[in-house]
């Protein structure tokens, strides 16, 4: 029997699914395939001037330009041995936290939720979930507002550059946002309730979870350690030694850790750093476990819980934004233009994008032009994991009607929130 979904809708970018499976559930062929062409962003960057990098890499993806910009400019700063101020770091952390909130909210509400209610169009979803959709839109709008006030605009922000910002946000506007956060937190709680009530399909497969780690808080911005399973590595060791890129199937790199599939993103961060969640987020997470009579081990065996993990992170990162806004407002924001000196050098950076750990690597020459670079996106890292999960799912659904099979496959793929523009770039 062949199962084909030529184009899976409601994900970022275009992808399809093909499988050949026997009546007894033996899989003869299975492929989750990206459908976008290769733009070759890395190749494009060779020879370009360092200040073009954030402009170019933001165009890798329209939903997560912020992590690409931040990962690129911090990697270049590492190469140039450029130290940035506390002000710059706080504003960048705010941008990144807001990006996670907006991306997760979009995925939770507009891409994935309809799978659990058999709704085929978001306009119908808006009708059925009036209160919840307003809450989701409000949370998302606040996150976009943060991006706009600090970055200049939500899609492809303009202000973040190597060394800092071209323009600083107005404090008045940051204050206005801070005042709106309690309402957004209330809305985030409503979303958590919505996603708490969902019937997540039964599914079980153990995998490895990777994310940045610092042993102090729920980390996401520029960390030195990557945790995978029970092991910890420096981010440069993880990037250059522990993982390998399979380049045999362009336009995507498929990444493995010592030959094994692994998972990154919300569920992975929750696995590795759950005990460092804010008090409220942690309570919500524990409530869910208790109500479902799940222990943590069982929770993390079911990939469908990635969705609930994202809901928890919306609350988590709204609270992070709240704290950061207060800190920023205490500072006397002032224009900074650190002096940049070029020398042939290289830099690497790792941070948590909404979908997981993102790596940017650059080499720069004495004129300030890029001589080498590499980008490893979260989706490239979890492609193997999607296929492994699909292989686990398929034998369980061979007896279903075609329509239901397709529905199950789509919904599993969407749980990952794959970003095909990022994966192919």
């Amino acid at each position, binding site marked *: 029997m062949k199962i084909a979904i*030529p*184009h899976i*809708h*409601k994900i*970022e*970018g*275009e992808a399809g699914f093909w499988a050949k499976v026997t009546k007894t559930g033996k899989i003869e062929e299975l492929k989750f395939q990206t*459908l*976008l*062409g*290769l*733009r*070759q962003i*890395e*190749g*494009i960057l*060779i*020879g*370009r*001037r360092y200040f*073009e990098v954030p*402009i*170019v890499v933001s*165009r*890798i*993806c*329209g*939903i997560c*330009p912020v992590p690409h910009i931040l990962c690129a400019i911090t990697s270049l700063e590492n190469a140039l041995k450029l130290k940035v101020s506390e002000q710059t770091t706080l504003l960048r952390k705010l941008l990144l936290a807001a990006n996670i909130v907006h991306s997760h909210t*979009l995925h939770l509400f*507009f*891409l994935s939720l*309809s799978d659990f209610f058999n709704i*085929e*169009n*978001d*306009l119908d979803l*808006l009708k059925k979930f009036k209160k919840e959709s307003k809450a989701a*839109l409000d949370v*998302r*709008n606040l996150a*976009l507002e943060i991006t706009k006030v600090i970055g*200049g*605009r*939500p*899609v*492809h922000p*303009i*202000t973040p550059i190597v060394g800092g910002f*071209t*323009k600083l946000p107005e404090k008045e506007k940051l204050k206005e946002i801070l005042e709106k956060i309690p309402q957004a937190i209330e809305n985030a709680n409503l979303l958590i309730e919505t996603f708490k009530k969902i019937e997540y399909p039964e599914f079980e497969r153990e995998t490895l979870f990777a994310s940045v780690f610092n042993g102090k808080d729920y980390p996401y911005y520029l960390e030195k350690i990557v945790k995978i399973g029970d092991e910890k590595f420096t981010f440069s060791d993880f990037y250059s030694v522990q993982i390998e890129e399979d*380049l*045999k199937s*362009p*336009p995507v*790199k498929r990444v493995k850790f010592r030959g094994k599939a692994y998972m990154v993103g919300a569920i992975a961060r929750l696995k590795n750093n759950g005990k460092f969640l804010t008090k409220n987020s942690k309570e919500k997470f524990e409530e869910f476990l208790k109500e479902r009579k799940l222990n943590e081990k069982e929770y993390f065996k079911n990939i469908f819980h990635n969705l609930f993990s994202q809901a928890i992170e919306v609350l988590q990162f709204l609270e992070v934004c709240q704290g950061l806004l207060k800190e920023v407002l205490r500072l006397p924001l002032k224009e900074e233009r650190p002096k940049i000196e070029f020398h042939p050098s290289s830099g690497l950076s790792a941070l948590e994008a909404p979908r997981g750990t993102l790596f940017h690597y650059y080499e720069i020459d004495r004129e300030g032009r890029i001589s080498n670079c*590499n980008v490893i996106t979260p989706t490239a890292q979890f492609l193997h994991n999607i296929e492994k999960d699909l292989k686990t799912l398929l034998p369980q659904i061979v007896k279903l009607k075609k329509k239901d099979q397709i529905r199950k496959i*789509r919904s599993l793929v969407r749980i990952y929130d794959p970003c095909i*523009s990022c994966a*192919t770039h």
Partner: protein
Amino acid sequence: MKKPKVAFFSLTSCEGCQFALLDLGERFFNFLREVELVDFSLIEEIPFPKEKVEIDVSFVEGLPIKNEEIELLKKIREESKILVAMGNCASLGGIPEMKNYQGKERTIRYVYKKLNVENPEIKEIDNFVKVDFYIPGCPIHGEEFLKYAKELTEGKIPEISQKPVCSECLNQGKETCFLRKKEPCLGPITLAGCEAICPKNNQLCYGCRGILKNVNLKGFLETLKKFKNPEEIEDNLEIFGIKDEIEKFLKP
């Protein structure tokens, strides 16, 4: 009254223009409620039909890099009364077009050394099909979209008024103007409508919205060359795919 049939398609791109639409929130959904949506894969589930359909307005984002995308684009053209290029990639080649300027073989082999990768010259969609209207910008401006989309769904082709980015720029005529500071800002030759968002954020205009009609390009480029070396100016023109447009304009 029958609702106009509208579709959104995404070819190879960052999909940022679609997100600029979703970021309008409730206002974009209100627009969608006024039309019959034939396809918009980001928010609905129904596959784009293989058989012939009728569409009043199709919005196409991105670039046809794969053969399948070229085929899809042709089908869209056949079935649409109005076909709109949405954003800088579809209209002008965008960031991916830099590949054309630097030797596409070198660029595409950078990561995938020996494998067979589809690697066409980057060509805007109007190289394959007739385009009736272009929405400029990288990304498009949501408000501007709503304005044009209204006219388009009424069957009209909007007129974009030919004003430069400078006409909307807060720095115009002031000390803070980049050109006064001898920085190669492309505001004077670039189509307005973005509210001069880059200069407003203290960033040069790199012309993502495309070149104005009836502008003294040659004179402007000569002026830039007085304070910047030609290589740097070329580099700037390459970022958003306008270098080839300028070459076309300047051809005798």
